[in-house]
């Protein structure tokens, strides 16, 4: 936990939801696997406070964007697997578009400053 957890959590929240949805687009996965996907996908730039994943998962499930079920893992353990729902796919598309517009805009601003 950082010095000001409330603030950092707020920064993360929306983004984390999007990243979770994105990582599940690759196929159903359990919680730990999702953190692995996000971390390796970001080439370990994003290092999650792993526990924070669970409130996000429960929230998304409650909202109907993902669903979950117990399943056997490759090495014969019981894991809770999460999968995107159709609503989750639409949500991911929308979030992604939003994110790209936003980051595009931020980039524009940054470039403008550079060019000046």
């Amino acid at each position, binding site marked *: *936990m950082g010095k000001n957890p409330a603030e950092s959590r707020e920064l993360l929240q929306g983004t984390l939801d999007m990243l979770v949805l994105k990582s599940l687009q690759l196929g159903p996965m*359990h*919680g*730990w*696997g999702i953190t692995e996907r996000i971390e390796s996908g970001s080439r370990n730039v994003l290092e999650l*406070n*792993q*526990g*924070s994943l*669970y*409130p*996000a*998962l*429960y*929230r998304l*499930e*409650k909202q109907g964007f993902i669903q979950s079920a117990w399943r056997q893992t490759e090495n014969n*353990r*019981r*894991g*809770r697997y999460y999968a995107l729902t159709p609503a989750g796919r639409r949500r991911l598309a929308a979030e992604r578009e939003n994110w790209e517009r936003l980051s595009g805009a931020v980039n524009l601003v940054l470039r403008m400053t550079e060019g000046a």
Partner: protein
Amino acid sequence: MTDHMDDRLDEEVRFHIEMQTEKNIRAGMPADEARRQALLRFGGRERWKSEARDEYKGSLFDGLRKDFVFAARSLRKHRGFSVTAILTLALGIGASTAIFSVVNAVLLRPLPYADADRLALIWGDMRARKVTDFPFSPGNYQDVRNQSATFKDIAAIAPFNGSIQVGGDPPEQTHNLGVTPNVLSVLGLRVLLGRDFEAGDATPPPAPPQAAPGQAAPQAPQAPPPPNIVILNHGFWQRRFGGDPRIVGKSIDMGGQPGIIIGVLRPGFEMLFPPNTNIESNPDMLIAMRVNFETASRLNVFMRLIGRLKPGVTLAAANQDVERIAADLKERFPIMKGADTHYRVELMHDDLVSDVRPAIFALMGAVSFVLLIACANVANLLLVRAAARERELAIRAAMGSSPWRIVRQLLSESLVLSLTSAVLALGLAYAGIKLLIALAPANLPRLDSVNIDPRVLVFATLAAIVAAALFGTVPALRAARPQLADVLRASGRTPGLGGGKLLRNGVVVAEVALSFVLLVGGGLMVRSFIELSRVRPGYDPTGVLTFQVGGRGGRSDDEVSGFQRRLGDRLRAIPGVAAATAVTPLPLDGTQFNSRWGKEDAVTDNTKFQQANVHVVLPGYFEAMGTRLIAGRTFTDADNRRDFMGVVIDDMLAAKAFPGESAVGKRLYARTREQEPEWLDIIGVVEHQRHEGLATPGRESIFLTDAFFGHGVAGTWALRLRCQPGEPCDPTRLASAARNVVSELDPKLAVSNLQPYTRLVDRAMTPTRFALVLIGVFAGVAAMLACVGLYGVLSTAVRQRTAEIGVRVAFGATRRSIFGLVVGDGMKLSALGLAVGLLTAFWLTRAMTTMLVGVRPTDATTYVTILALFLVIAVMACLIPARRAASLDPTNALRSD
């Protein structure tokens, strides 16, 4: 469902950490380190779990539900604490709910009429004679009705007793209500069967003028009277006619006069009038009064007025309106001017409850104090418990539970406690209401409708929630902000007991103060009750049986007089009967019969008249009642004749009319049997009889013979049983003999209200007894709770100071001085509480003034007695903790911390 959720979360987190640990091992870490790193990467497990749970639950409601389940589990674990707290609260909430149900039924629930808040009662006041709530004469009623601009309509009623005879059954006395035909439309009520009254139902008979109902009046022998037009009350229709659906149109025998039933009222009809009017709220039937408004005397007052105010009219405007009419009448009728007559409008509901409102408020206040004290005790329990749990809570806080979560958790526990208590309390209230109804005085209107309705349920729930807020908030807030480091560092077996000491002491001081106020209230009621029992009412009610004989024992005066003499002789012949007499009205029976009297100056100046009660008696009345003769003589049989102008007055009237001289032989100018006053000769002075009530002397009285009014007016018989001193004296064993005597003489006559006279005395004492019992019980409970609270605080203090006491003993303090130390602490708290209580009591007991008899709210004896009593209670509460402190073994005590 929740448990399922928790299991799933636990398993997921375990799985996650295992996977991460394995990954770390694969990366080359030793197993221990791998797990440690995995846990570190995961972060505060409890916090994430609880957040995940919150996310999943989503709404606040779901979270609360979980809190409640958890709270219930935790309370079940600490059974002793929970049971104590729940019982204490149930007592407080239950008592409050029971009293509130009375407030609800009597003060809050609207009267059973359409738009009842527009209904108003109209009264006459004769200010020059200090008479209030006077009824109206037919003429005055008609003038008010016709001339008022603020009333939509005004109805008049007059209750009287009658009798009916159905088939071959013996005659039955009935409570009749004479009404004007518009009464149901004014009240906004409709009939169940048949039709409402019409103007034609009240057409007066052609010949002689109407006499006051209920009083025997000479009937016109020539023309047969027109039939009474009758609407039956629902209950009477059910009881007497078996709910016969074809009853409408049938005629009935009403004591020699025919009646025609034109309708039946809907169930629940009540004629609610203030208790001093003695109007039966549940009459057997309504009868259209056949009053000739043209010829009826303006001096014959018997009508009670109910009006429906026009929409938007204020009470002040209505009062102005009727006062204008009164002023006009005063100009037309000098006697009204002399009496300084005023008319007054009161909203019906306010007027009905004006007598009992102070008592109900006082009781509600008292019971709120009990609830507050119960809350204080539970708060103290919670504070001690929170102190004991401080370590647990501190650890939970360190594990990542937010302060808000802990507050929420503790408040949920409080709510679970108080809502459980509320359920139990409703049971208590239900039983309490039964008890209240049994105890309550007759002047509490609509008592039979006291019950647990939705509003009472809401009250109980709110009381529980407010109670939870009162006793739960402070302990919860304190517990949520533990000084983490301090608590965790403290290793003693009673960590944290030191904290909150000031708070706990404050709570106890408040408890002592509150219960002291209640005890003073109880003490004042005890004093009042003693005063009331000591009152000499002017008669000896013990061993007297009273009953009424309805109907006339003959047609002519001579026949009636003969019947009365025979009845008296036969009654006196019953074995064990010492005396038999008759009177109207019987003291304390609630009937009002008063008239004006004056001396020489009143003949020319009608402002000199004053008002006195009139009693019509048979010779032997004073002797039978045990009323002392003070001067002159009482009536003899020879005096019982129409032309005997002698009168007996009571000592109050004698002192008022002839201060400093003997009244015997003087004359009074009084209106009695005729419309105009007559000169009466005072033959005797007797001690004053309390008639209107026991608490105050009431009005002066004039006694006249039965024959003076026309035989048979004295209608309530009183039999005195011959009693041996020291033996039980129950006059009810004369009841069946008395009944037999009456029916042998005339089987057509109905005997009613057969009861020992002590019952009337008892009824007059009920309001005081009611308040005494309730306030007494509340005070007792409060004192007990305060005692427990004091004990609890001192016990905690002793436990917490064990080491200090050990040191003191080690340095040579005697057991006696340790004992004194603890008792001193307790007494200091009590003294502070008593000081606060004294001031509060001084200020609050003024509200009880109208409930007290012969004692002032600031009665010094009561205060000193209660103070002493409370000190004894306080010492008792201190004894056990003090003894425990004094018997501490210093070596053990020192080792304990």
